[in-house]
């Protein structure tokens, strides 16, 4: 039997494909939240960059320009969010939710205005990001296990997938071993202490928000120009909130958060496979109940294994020099 036929292999590959959307967004959230700004607007930034990436990639027929434009717009929104939450000291939760709602409407309106396809961009066709085929794939493709491992698990993904996984050590390094990371964590934990140490709290938070904007944009670009090949209204489909969940789940730490994202990716993949399978005794489980699995598992894991997750102390609190 070829390893390829074994369903677990397909679950693994599928997990790798599912995870980047969440990973980019969760890492974006990590930057924002470790700096003390609650980022409920992941969903909105994702949607905006998904739209702009697709629109620009289609118009220019160049996916890289699409990604770039997505970064630009996502950073712009992050800056608006930063202005409201940091400079204006507004309620960060409200700002986040407002941005999500506004962009859910605006992306549709603009897509409809420019492309008149019902809030959809045209198919990108060749303007999508290609999958990378590792050198020598053809030669090894038929070797049992290794062929699968090399061509399907390691290779055969978009650049953004590799970027997502590459981010894990990178974010870890930046957070714990760079000046920026040190200031970021300080500002999210005790902004008054950071301020007293001569760190500009607002500037640091702004920079964190810019990082969040950049990272989140990849999530949107991945959705539209890698996974789907076009933009569709509300295509972020709750992934921004799921990414936040992974962040809480991962205790605001890069490695654990990435694991959380992989867990969601895994359960989505698993659920796809067991839909329609006849189990002994219980028989066929209805699809809608199977779809619950990732959510139920999350609740159980949160309640059982890692009861207490500790948020950055200053999260959600605007920095005001006062009592």
């Amino acid at each position: 039997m070829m390893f390829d036929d074994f369903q677990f292999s397909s679950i693994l590959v599928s997990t790798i494909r599912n995870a980047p959307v969440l990973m980019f967004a969760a890492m974006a959230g990590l930057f924002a939240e470790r700096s003390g700004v609650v980022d409920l607007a992941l969903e909105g930034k994702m949607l905006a960059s998904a739209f702009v990436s697709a629109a620009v990639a289609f118009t220019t027929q160049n996916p890289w320009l699409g990604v770039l434009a997505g970064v630009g717009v996502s950073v712009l929104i992050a800056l608006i969010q930063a202005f409201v939450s940091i400079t204006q000291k507004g309620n960060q939760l409200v700002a986040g939710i407002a941005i999500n709602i506004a962009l859910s409407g605006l992306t549709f309106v603009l897509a409809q205005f420019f492309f008149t396809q019902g809030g959809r961009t045209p198919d990108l066709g060749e303007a999508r990001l290609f999958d990378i085929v590792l050198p020598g794939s053809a030669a090894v493709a038929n070797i049992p296990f290794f062929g699968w491992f090399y061509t399907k698990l390691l290779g055969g993904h978009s650049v953004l997938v590799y970027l997502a996984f590459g981010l894990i050590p990178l974010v870890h390094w930046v957070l714990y071993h760079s000046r920026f990371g040190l200031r970021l964590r300080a500002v999210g934990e005790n902004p008054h202490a950071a301020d007293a140490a001569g760190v500009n709290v607002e500037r640091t938070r702004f920079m964190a928000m810019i990082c969040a904007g950049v990272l989140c944009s990849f999530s949107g670009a991945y959705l539209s120009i890698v996974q789907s090949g076009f933009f569709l209204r509300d295509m972020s489909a709750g992934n921004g909130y799921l990414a936040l969940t992974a962040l809480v789940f991962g205790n605001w730490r890069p490695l654990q958060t990435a694991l959380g994202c992989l867990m969601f990716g895994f359960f989505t993949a698993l659920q796809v496979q067991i839909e329609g399978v006849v189990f002994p005794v219980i028989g066929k489980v209805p699809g809608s109940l199977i779809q619950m699995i990732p959510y139920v598992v999350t609740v159980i894991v949160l309640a059982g294994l890692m009861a207490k997750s500790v948020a950055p102390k200053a999260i959600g609190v605007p920095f005001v020099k006062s009592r």
Partner: protein
Amino acid sequence: MNQADLPRWASTFALPLLNLLSALLVAAGVIYLLGENPIESLQILVNAAVLDPEGLGYTLFYAATFIFTGLSVSVAMQAGLFNIGSEGQMYIGGLGLTLLILALDTHLPGWILIPLAIASSAIFGAAWAFLPGYLQAKRGSHVVVTTIMFNFIAANLMNYLIILMIPDGQQNPASRLFANSSWLPKLNGLFPILGETPLNISFLLAIVALVIYGVAVWRTTWGYQLRATGLNQHAAHYAGISIKKTIIVTMMISGALAGLAAVNSVMGSTHYLNLNFPAGAGFIGIAIALMGRQHPVGIFLSAILFGALIQGGFDLSLEKPNIPPETFIFIQGLIILFCGAMENLYAPALSALLKRKEK
């Protein structure tokens, strides 16, 4: 520099109004870009949502639901809990009243059935909020995350259950039509001018809920304990308040209010349970709670504003096909952003202006 410097009229009326105008100004820009006249559009919107009596009826109808979800989110916020799960709790509340009505509507007269069904929606909503509350209190699991998860779980569960409820020969994933005895009395009997709108007694119920909420939170020991818990858990513990009990009870009350939000549309308008009937009302509740600063009057006004936007926007998109209904989703977002998160935007300017006048 900050709001405290401003006279009360300025901070409670002038600032929100300036913010609302700013949001509308941005919206006007977008409408202009879409090729329509913003002023005319605004006229149509205001006409359809407020000036036209029937339109007003619809505005108030939508507002009734939003008041309940807004209250649901607000009461949890008072205890420092961010309940994102009102949507799911409302969904399950709808299930509660439906199960009861389906079982009893052929046996019981309305005056027994309706109160029972309303109670059932509250109980189901409360029950659905119990577990996130319990897990937060006893296990420290973040209520934000668990309620998001419970929204998804509720959607899956309801999808499964509603399909079982479809009457024979029907296509629509919805329960059968309820018997007349369970229909909520409409208010157009009292105010014929409102015309044929689904506005019903649950609007009055919502007003009562607002008053009870205001009194309970600011005038009772319970409310005091609730707010103390929300503002400083250490001090609440010191004060002998049971934090765990407060969290669980508050979440259940929040869930019950969200459950009650189902009454308006299910028992007052459609008279059957269908898929996705909350249609985002739970999430709008978050916006309303935040914009209304968890204050009864604020919640009321925000709920009316959102009701008007939905009703007015609906009519406007009919008259102006260039303006898709989604434009109003965008405008809602803008309004929440300006009124809910940038309350200090004009405070410095306004305070400078007032100071200059004084001199």
